[in-house]
Every structure is written in structure tokens, then in C-alpha cells.
């Protein structure tokens, strides 16, 4: 079975480290970026099955990254996470066709189930 790959985008180093260790432990390939611009650089250079991105980040936030990805990488599912949830950002996320919107703090095992199911759905 092919190894799945995930790109985690978050400006918080602690969150990036936590998710890096967790997904490595599950046998996934994982790339990390601290903002949307760095994430796009990574997407240009390697195959990614799913992007898990924070919304509020400096330079390019998660909603701007998702909007850009809908143009350039429409087949890669995006899950957004945020510590500052709001109706407005959830509506914007829906319009950007993200596959889920997760509020922080999250249960990492529930998050993993969501991500695993979305990658499997994509594989058909």
C-alpha cells in the first residue's frame, strides 16, 4: 500500500512539531510549512495527498492558501483548523470547498480519523 503524504501548515512551531511526530508515528510522509507561501513552494516540489492548514497565519493565511490551491491544485483536499472560529470564516471555508473545518484545541485521534477518511475518499 502506498504511503500517504500530508502537508501541515501552521505558524505555531509547537503544533507543527506535534503533528509532525504524530503523522510520522502513523507511517505518513509529512511536510511542514509556517505560512501559505511556504506551503505553495512545497506543493510545487512534491506530491501531497492532503493539506491541513491553520487559518490565522502571517503573510498568507489558510483561506488565501485554499483559494490559491483551488486554482492550481483542485484535487488536493484541504482541512482547515482554527483557534478563532467564526461563522464568517466557516462560510468562506465552505465556499473554498474545504473538506473539513476543525476548531482548536482538537483531539488528535479524531483529527486523524477525519484526515484518514478524506484521503481514502480521494483515492476512491
Amino acid at each position, binding site marked *: 500500500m502506498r504511503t500517504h503524504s500530508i502537508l501541515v501548515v501552521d505558524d505555531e512551531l509547537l503544533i507543527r512539531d506535534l503533528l509532525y511526530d504524530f503523522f510520522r508515528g502513523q507511517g505518513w510522509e509529512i511536510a511542514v510549512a509556517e505560512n501559505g507561501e511556504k506551503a505553495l513552494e512545497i506543493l510545487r516540489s512534491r506530491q501531497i495527498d492532503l493539506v491541513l492548514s491553520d487559518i490565522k497565519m502571517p503573510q498568507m493565511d489558510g483561506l488565501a492558501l485554499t483559494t490559491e490551491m483551488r486554482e492550481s491544485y483542485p484535487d488536493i483536499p484541504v482541512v482547515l483548523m482554527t483557534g478563532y*472560529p467564526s461563522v464568517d470564516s466557516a*462560510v468562506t471555508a*465552505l465556499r473554498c470547498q474545504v473538506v473539513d*473545518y476543525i476548531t482548536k484545541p482538537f483531539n488528535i485521534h479524531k483529527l486523524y480519523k477525519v484526515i484518514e477518511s478524506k484521503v481514502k475518499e480521494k483515492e476512491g
Partner: protein
Amino acid sequence: MADREPEVRRKLADFFEMIGYQADAVANDQDVLSKAAAHDYAVALVDCRLSGDSGLDVLAELSASYPETSVIMLSAEPTLEIVIAALRKGAFDFVVKPFDLTELTEIVHKAADQHELLKMYRAMSAQMRQDRDAGSQRGAGLTKATG
């Protein structure tokens, strides 16, 4: 157009008829589902509070049974939970009431375009599958004939 407010559903249905759509207006979830079973709708406008909170159940049913229909959810009192539920159940868009009719019209046009694209994609995928199956059957026949 599914809304429990008679005036809202009638005015919207009349408006979309006027700009060239064929529109039906219904008041409850059972009527949405029976209409959807009988027609190939490009777009469904569904209020979240159709009967109780059943608008989200209608969305889930439409997404599962008629994935090519783009469903736009409407709500006068959106909460984070309702919007996230709509996102997870596959809504095409979420519009907060009171809405700007010009903006809603643009969203409906986009939703109708999405419906056409999905139909085309599914037809092309089906054709490609048929061609592939026919090709492998021909290959099997050739192996049998020559083997």
C-alpha cells in the same frame, strides 16, 4: 426553492423564473425529496430551518442521492455549528438572510455551472470506462483466438 416562509419561496421562485430558470417552490423536507426524485435539478436553495432543523438533513439526503445538484443553504440565524455541518454535508454555498438578490443570483449561476461541469465529468468518465472495458474484452478475445 425550499423555505417555510410562503412569501420568500414564492418571490424567489418567481424571480428565478423571470430570469430564465424553471423553478419549483416547496415548504417542507418531504416535498423537496419527492420533487428531487422526479426532476433533475441543477440547483436547490434550502433554508436550514425548513421544518425544525431539517434543512441540514435535506442537504445530506440531496448530497447522497443527487450529488450533481448544487445545494445552497440559507439561514437567518447561522451558528458556527450549522455552517460547519453544512460544509461537512457538501453544501455548495451558504447564504445569510437577508441576502442581496444580485449576490444570490451570481451564486445560483455558479451553482448551475458546477452542475453542468459535474454532469459532463461523469458522462466522460462513464464513456472512458466503457471504452476501457470494451478494449479489455477485445484483448481477451484476441488472446483466446490466437492462444
